[in-house]
């Protein structure tokens, strides 16, 4: 098991001491905290080292911090659906479950062999489909089911939603020359095609189900080919799955079944793991919760950590004065000390990494050095940044600007980051209040009322696919709430979509990034999230991915029975 610890962006300790006090106490605290993390890491490594031959049997108890809006992966974007429902379904291709931290290691799931290389100048992909795969109701899967699924995803009938339709913009048509072959014909070669096809939301449905029961049937019904079969769902309580005896990946799954227990309150999920009522939670806990669990349970807990393909974005409403003024938006970004935020917020919240628009560390993402030199707000000299912010505010006549930060009523990390931002802006003389709304009215404000001044928003993606992921910042992207238009940004993105050359892609991503974060400061990045998964150490086989949506089929998880008996008894 791996514990990823990203120290590339470690910030300098704050140089000023508001209270003029010696920092010995805090240093001792940090030392203790570092010790605890190292201890957790050691436990995790220990657990990894003891991994042996997988054992069959047992039931996994997963706690999920959200209810299930619907069962339909094609319209949902929440872990609340993915975590309990994904094990019932299969994908055409997926991220390698044995190497989920790699953003480029894709393997076949319902196809056979390796993921195909494109032909026809990068415009044709031919997949060979597995034989004998059965849906839960006994239907046999054919290429027609794959075509029906992706037709629904990229060109749904009128009135039928497909949340990630824009990701499949390159698809021209899908052909099925025989029952075991699917051919995707693209309009243009695209580096984003394979990552888009591998998204964990692309559940493969039966063509017959779609045609007979309609395109909304899967919102309330389940019929998949995944490692587990649907057993029951008690609304607001749990979802149960049992082992699929006909599963096509031989020898899997190892578990007899699983129960996803719905528990929206973090303290409940935490205490469930601590008290032996649950084994694992897949979204992630803040560092303090990890430390408490490790302190209380010692070697009964394993911890996996990873950078997370999720980021909180500050979105000024360009239609609200004075946020139509780029000087004001730039000042907001300049006032934020990302490096000290990374150092300190990572101790209390699920955020950590300083980065640009692309997932930090990905080949297409900008390096920390590049960001530091080229993008407003990334310079290490925070005093200089803030002096510039004050100058810009003065020039714009907004030295004593008062405004409201619109935020989502979720503690981790929204409210923590919101409170931090307000403190950061206070340093340049801004007086900011926080307006917090529960998720549904929060999105209604962003999408319908549009009456916010500045809002926090997130960009969480599944498969790391920066070209698709950065469409969030595009005015025409469909999920941009900054209320602006920019022809130059659109033009850069169009060029990026059609470029196959990686070097050129990186240049264009940086041009796009500079336009968004620096020239326009249309929106700006706070900190990228950091995923921490502490779980019972008798759970084996699961590997953390840079997204809480990935690697959730549960097929490779197994329970160490001797360890389970030691910890839980029975």
């Amino acid at each position, binding site marked *: 098991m791996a514990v990823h610890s990203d120290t590339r962006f470690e910030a300098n*300790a*704050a140089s000023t*001491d*508001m*209270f003029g*006090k010696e*920092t010995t*106490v*805090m240093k001792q*605290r940090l030392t203790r905290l570092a010790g605890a993390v190292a201890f957790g890491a050691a436990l995790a490594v220990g657990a990894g080292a003891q991994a042996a031959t997988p054992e069959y049997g047992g039931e996994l108890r997963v706690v999920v911090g959200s209810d299930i809006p619907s069962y339909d992966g094609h319209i949902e974007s929440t872990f609340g659906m993915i975590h309990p429902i994904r094990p019932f379904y299969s994908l055409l291709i997926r991220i390698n479950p044995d190497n989920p931290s790699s953003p480029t290691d894709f393997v076949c799931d319902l196809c056979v062999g390796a993921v195909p290389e494109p032909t026809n100048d990068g415009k044709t992909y031919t997949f060979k489909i597995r034989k004998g795969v059965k849906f839960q109701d006994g239907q046999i899967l054919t290429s027609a089911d794959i075509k029906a699924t992706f037709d629904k995803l990229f060109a749904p009938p009128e009135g039928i939603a497909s949340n990630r339709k824009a990701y499949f913009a390159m698809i021209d048509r899908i052909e099925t020359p025989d029952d075991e072959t699917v051919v995707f014909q693209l309009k243009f070669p695209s580096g984003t095609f394979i990552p888009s096809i591998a998204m964990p939301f692309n559940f493969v449905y039966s063509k017959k189900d779609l045609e007979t029961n309609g395109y909304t049937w899967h919102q309330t019904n389940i019929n998949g080919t995944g490692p587990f079969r649907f057993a029951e769902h008690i609304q607001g309580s749990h979802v149960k799955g049992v082992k699929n005896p006909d599963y096509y990946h031989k020898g899997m799954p190892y578990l007899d079944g699983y129960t996803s227990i719905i528990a929206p309150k*973090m*303290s409940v999920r935490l205490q469930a793991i601590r008290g032996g009522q649950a084994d694992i939670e897949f979204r992630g806990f*803040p560092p*303090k*919760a990890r*430390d*408490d669990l490790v*302190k209380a349970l010692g070697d009964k807990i394993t911890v996996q950590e990873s950078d997370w393909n999720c980021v909180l974005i500050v979105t000024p409403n360009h239609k609200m004065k004075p946020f139509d003024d780029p000087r004001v938006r730039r000042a907001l970004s300049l006032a934020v000390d990302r490096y*000290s935020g990374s*150092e*300190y917020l990572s*101790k*209390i919240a699920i955020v950590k990494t300083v980065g640009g628009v692309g997932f930090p560390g990905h080949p297409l993402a900008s390096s920390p050095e590049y960001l530091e030199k080229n993008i407003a707000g990334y310079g290490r000299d925070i005093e200089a940044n803030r002096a510039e912010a004050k100058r810009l505010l003065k020039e714009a006549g907004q030295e004593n600007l008062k405004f409201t930060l619109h935020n989502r*009523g979720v*503690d981790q990390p929204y*409210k*923590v980051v*919101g*409170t*931090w931002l*307000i*403190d950061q802006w*206070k340093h340049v003389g801004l007086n900011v*209040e*926080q*307006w*917090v*709304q529960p998720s549904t*009215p929060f999105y209604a404000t962003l999408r319908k009322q549009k009456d916010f001044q500045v809002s926090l928003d997130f960009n969480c993606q599944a498969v790391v696919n920066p070209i698709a992921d950065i469409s969030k910042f595009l005015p025409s992207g469909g999920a941009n709430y900054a209320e602006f238009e920019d022809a130059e940004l659109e033009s850069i993105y169009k060029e990026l979509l059609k470029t196959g050359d990686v070097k050129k892609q990186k240049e264009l991503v940086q041009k796009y990034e500079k336009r968004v974060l620096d020239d326009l400061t249309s929106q700006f990045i706070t900190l990228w999230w950091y995923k921490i998964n502490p779980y019972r150490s008798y759970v084996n086989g699961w590997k953390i991915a840079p997204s809480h949506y990935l690697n959730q089929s549960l097929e490779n998880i197994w329970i160490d029975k001797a360890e389970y008996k030691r910890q839980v008894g029975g």
Partner: protein
Amino acid sequence: MTTPEIGIGSNELPKKNNVWDHFVRMAKRQPLGTAGGLVVLLIAIMAVFAPWLAPYDPLEANFIYMLTPPDSQFLMGTDSFGRDLFSRIIYGARTALLIGFTCAIVGSATGLALGVASAYFGGYFDLIMQRVIDVFMAFPLIIMALAIVSIFGTGIDKVMIAITIPFIPRCARVVRSSALAVREMPFVDAARSIGYGHLRIIFRHIAPNVMAPFLIMLTAFMGEAILLEASLSYLGLGVQEPTPAWGLMLQGGEEFAESAPWVPIFPGLAITIAVFGFNLFGDAVRDALDPRLRSQ
């Protein structure tokens, strides 16, 4: 202290009672009420003089000191943002009192007007008013406040509305029962017979005579309002960060209950002491205004 004797043959003039004499007499008669009054006074002093009493800016984050335990520099320690908890508790008294006083005064004054009017007019007006009050009173206070917050949203002004509305029917019901008796008094009939208007009779003749239950409700509401504000903020539906508010601080400290217990303990204590103080004070007011208890 001895009271000077005044009688035949005494040449001494009676001493004028000063505030201290009153206080000592009251403390002897109502020790718990006096303690409650002192708590209320202390909270009021904290609220009014917060900028002078608080050693640090309650909003200023200083991560170098995050989660520092209580010591001589930070009397109550610091929270996860490195903010001084003592300063935030002091400033939190402002939020508590602002909400407590505003909601209690507006809620009970509106209830007073509606309750007296309902009793005075009687008939269909009273019938309809009482059924509406029945509907409002069917919901527990916190449920009603939650429902109102979910309609109006969060924020200090909305929280005040959410807390004030459930107070109105409660006060109106109690005041009405007293006003029904006052309405039958000869002086009300006399006022009517000489042609006084309804408003004059309600506010000049009936309302002053139902002040005892009104004042009891008013003081009881103050403690309840502070508790409700804390409850709503604890649920994330009340005052929002970075405003110092005790319930919000308690909620923020929940995560650190084990590793940094001072973060939730001090705001929890502040809420407990404030509500206890207001309740004791309210009981004392009730006793002072109840002729039966006063004679004892």
